[in-house]
Each structure stands twice: as structure tokens, then as C-alpha cells.
């Protein structure tokens, strides 16, 4: 599939490379392991085997059960607009796995004790700290309607995920109708954990701005929907700059 993930570390203390390299290697290893377990493009992945009925969840790696539990929680919060069990071909948590893998990769990087780190998995970003001690990370959101521009800049509390029209077809299936369907041009969710942000951004772009109510009872997450006509709809504390 070729999802490029970039890891950026920021530190004012200039730690030597030899101290960082083993941790970075381990962090990249987390991404590889996630791909081996969850890729629906690989026949031999644990998830593919589960989908074909060749492997029981009880016998599969623990991470699969953890991810599916997060999917259940995201399904509840999104009132069913994110539902991996409604996907054709069997359970498909892909809308959450990328965020989960990037977040797990970031958590390994905490061992470097740097001032800031950012793991960017094709636009789904997990981070801690900032580019220097006075700033948080600033992330631009691509404008889905005017591709040569940024729609806005966001100061991220940690995780930020955007779902958009470029994903149309593969993962943006409306669980209520079973068909590929989106009611927005793009949706962005920020919060503490990227796996949940990833799932909720997917749900939001399918459901449209009326589903922003899902954040009413979710204190640490905020959402933005860019409608097909280019208008912005966001939760009151969405950290737009």
C-alpha cells in the first residue's frame, strides 16, 4: 500500500544519534508489526485470516482484540456512523488502525525524552510537546475544495486526524446504507488519542456536520467539518489558529 509515515523529533539539547537510534528503530518496528497484523492487502495478516474465518479472535495477537475494543467504543461514541462490523468482507477496522499504529509508534518515542515529537501517517498525526519549549505543534488542514490552499491552521493538543474525499470508496462506506457515501468534503478531529480521532473523523465525513453533536459529551475532543459548499462547522473549542 505504501503509506509513508514520517517521524520528527525536536529537541534543544542535541542528543547524540546513538542514544536515539535504538528507540527510533523500535518505534518504526511498531509500524511494521501493525502492518503485518492488520493489512487487508496481505492475505497472511492476522486480520485477513480472521475475516476469512481461518483464525479465531481468541487465538489472534492481543493487539487485534485491543483495536476491536477501541472500535466498539468509537462506534458507540459516533452513534454507529463509524462501524467496522458493517463493512463488506468482514470486520474492517482500517479507519482506526492507522491512527492506532501511529499513536503506538509515538508512545515508543517518549523514551527519547525529547521536547517534542510528531508521527505523521499520511495526514493522521500523533504528537507530544512542540517544536520548541514555547510552542505547540501547528498543523495545516488541506482545503478539500481548493486544493492549492490550506483551509486553516490548527494548534494540536496531541492527535489530529482528517478524513476526506480522497478516501472515497475504500473506507468511507455509510454503515447505515451499506454504500459509499459522504456528506462533507472533509472532517478533522483533534484530541488526546489518534485512534479515536481517526475513527471519529471517518464517522464525521460520512455523517456530515449534524453529527458534531457526538462531541457534546466528549470533553477532550473537538471536531471540524468542511461541507461540500466550503463552509466550516466546528465545535466551540476547536483549536483553530
Amino acid at each position, binding site marked *: 500500500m505504501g503509506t509513508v509515515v514520517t517521524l520528527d523529533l525536536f529537541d534543544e539539547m542535541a542528543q547524540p544519534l546513538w542514544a536515539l537510534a535504538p528507540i527510533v528503530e523500535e518505534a518504526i518496528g511498531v509500524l511494521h508489526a501493525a502492518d503485518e497484523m492488520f493489512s487487508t492487502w496481505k492475505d497472511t495478516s492476522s486480520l485477513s485470516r480472521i475475516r476469512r474465518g481461518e483464525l479465531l479472535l481468541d487465538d489472534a495477537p492481543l493487539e487485534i482484540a485491543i483495536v476491536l475494543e477501541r472500535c466498539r467504543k468509537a462506534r458507540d461514541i459516533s452513534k454507529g456512523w463509524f462501524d467496522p462490523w458493517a463493512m463488506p468482507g468482514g470486520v474492517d477496522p482500517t479507519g482506526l488502525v492507522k491512527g492506532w499504529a501511529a499513536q503506538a509508534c509515538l508512545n515508543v518515542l517518549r523514551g527519547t525524552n525529547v521536547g517534542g515529537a510528531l508521527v505523521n501517517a499520511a495526514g493522521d498525526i500523533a504528537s507530544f510537546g512542540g517544536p520548541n519549549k514555547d510552542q505547540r505543534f501547528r*498543523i495545516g488542514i*488541506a482545503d478539500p475544495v481548493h*486544493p492549492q490552499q490550506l483551509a486553516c491552521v490548527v494548534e494540536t493538543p496531541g492527535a489530529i486526524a482528517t478524513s476526506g474525499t480522497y478516501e472515497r470508496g475504500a473506507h468511507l462506506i455509510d454503515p447505515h446504507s451499506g454504500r459509499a457515501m459522504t456528506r462533507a468534503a472533509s472532517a478533522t478531529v483533534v484530541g488526546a488519542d489518534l485512534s479515536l480521532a481517526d475513527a471519529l473523523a471517518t464517522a464525521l465525513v460520512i455523517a456530515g456536520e449534524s453529527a458534531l453533536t457526538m462531541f457534546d459529551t466528549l470533553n477532550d475532543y473537538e471536531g471540524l467539518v468542511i461541507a461540500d459548499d466550503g463552509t466550516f462547522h466546528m465545535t466551540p473549542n476547536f483549536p483553530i489558529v
Partner: protein
Amino acid sequence: MNRAPIVLLSTVAGLVGVFSFHSSPAKITFGTVPAAPSTTTPPTTSAPTTTRTSGPKTTTSTPVRNPPPTSTPTTRPTTTITTAPVTTTTVTPSVRQATGVSVNYSFGILSVKVTVSKTTITKVSIAAIDDGGNPRSVSIDQYAIPILQQEALRAQSANIQGVSGASYTSAGFAQSLQSALTQLGL
């Protein structure tokens, strides 16, 4: 802030990790980091050449601040597919180029080359593109590149450290561009 990026690149068929380290001051001790593999400009041939790695592979390359390596950057896109280690070349001490990883996009495989002068992006182009002869890639070349060039330039002016979301035709482009920028420490 001075930046002395060190890049670790490991490739497998699925998720590709690219790492860079931004720090100030600039001096970084490399310790036991192995020397960068020698880089060669891909030959211009009509037959596509493909190198594939079968398992996880890690290469470490360090951009040079002292005498730059002599290498001639290609000035026009070729039709060669390459998944060889990505290269960073120094044209003059302040102008540097890097080619991003090859990525799958809607119609095939492409990689992006970016040129920077100090820390400013001056040019973004397609390093290599193979789409099996699909004529739509030509329109991507003509239509998407100027737009994405603007996108890259606009992004750098907003003092941001990343971009979330991408349009349909540019998802793969943005990924490869991102990896090229990361190699250059931007």
C-alpha cells in the same frame, strides 16, 4: 533554529518509516552511525528497472555540511521506476535536493524531488513516475504539479510542522514530498 537532520529510512511493503531529528545547536556527534551508501544517478533507459527489498531494510544517510558529494541531479523526470535508497544531493552548499520515497498513487508509482535553498523550498517536481502508460498521468503532471507546488510553498509560509488531509490526486504526491522534505530536515 539550526537543524542538522539525521535520516533513518526503513522500507517494507506496507508502512514506510522516515525519521528526522531537528535540534539546535547544529553539532551532532554521529558515533557509530554507518557511512551512507554511495548514491548513483539512475541511468536514463527506456526499460524500467526495479529493485525491491524482500525484508525490512535500514539505511542511514547523513546530509553533508562539509565537502558536498559530487553528483549531478537529473533535471527532467525519467520513466525509470526505482525503489532504491532515497538520495540527498548537494548542488552548492546552500542548495540541496532530495528525492522522496516511491509511493503508490491513483494510477501507478511516483516519487517527488524537492529543491531547497537553505531552508526555503524553491522547486517541487516529479522525480520518477510510472503508470503503465495510462494517459491520465500526463494531466496529473500538467495539472497537479503546479497546484501541489503551490501547496508545498503555501505550507511552508504558515509556520506549520505538518499538513493533515490531502486531495484525491495528491495523496501519494504529498507522501513522497513529505519524505523528501524530512530528509532535508524541513
